[in-house]
């Protein structure tokens, strides 16, 4: 799992690359929680290079969403592949998260 964070005007873009499962999600969680300590007004997570995500990945993003809301910020998920979008739909969370097609759209 590769994780890169790029500061942008008014927030942070985090790009994840690789599969998110029980093995990799603790690292994703730790990194995102670390970035949230900087209290970005908007955390944009680019998932376009994530081909697989299980419920531990979803749980990580649920926790981030709760954290971001406490900080009165925003979390946007970008570039979900169709299979992963379906997992969010199965979990009835597709409407709970702000999901955008591109990073540009998420920054708008």
């Amino acid at each position, binding site marked *: 799992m590769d994780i890169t964070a790029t500061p942008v005007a008014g927030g942070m873009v985090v790009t994840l690359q690789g*599969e998110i*499962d*029980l*093995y990799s999600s603790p690292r994703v969680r730790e990194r995102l929680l670390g970035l949230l300590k900087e209290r970005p007004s908007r955390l944009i997570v680019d998932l376009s290079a994530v081909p*697989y995500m*299980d*419920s*531990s990945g*979803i*749980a*990580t993003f*649920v*926790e981030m*969403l*709760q954290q971001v809301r406490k900080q009165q910020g925003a979390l946007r998920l970008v570039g979900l592949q*169709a*299979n992963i979008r*379906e*997992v969010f739909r*199965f*979990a*009835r969370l597709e409407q*709970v998260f702000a999901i955008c097609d591109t990073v540009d759209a998420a920054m708008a």
Partner: protein
Amino acid sequence: MGPSSLTVIFPAEARWLAAIRALVEQSCLLTGFAEEVTYRVKLAVDEACTNIIRHSYSSRSGTITLDVEVGNGAMTFTLRDRGKPFSPEGQSDLPRELKPGGLGMPLIQQVMDEVEYSRTPGGENLLRMVKRLGRN
């Protein structure tokens, strides 16, 4: 193609999950499942293994046995472990409030056509999941 099966025994550790997913994926594709169905089945087996690692063994050491059987127009995945008894009853519904966790068993139930849990007299948890060919 006649009935066939394979069995793999692996450590109940998260780092093995990618290898198990690869095995499930290839088995499904060889059996003739469509790619999107293969993805869902892979997810379901992964979620079941994750539950065993996290809840049955509570991250203690142990092994998981996965039997994959193909026959009668279906694939059957049976997972066995010797951890704490784990019943999927009451775990099948999605959480009512927004919280991290509690999604694994509902996802499995949505994907698989049959899901059965039993605790064997020998002290094993046994989770049997069936996916029929031709179903989404």
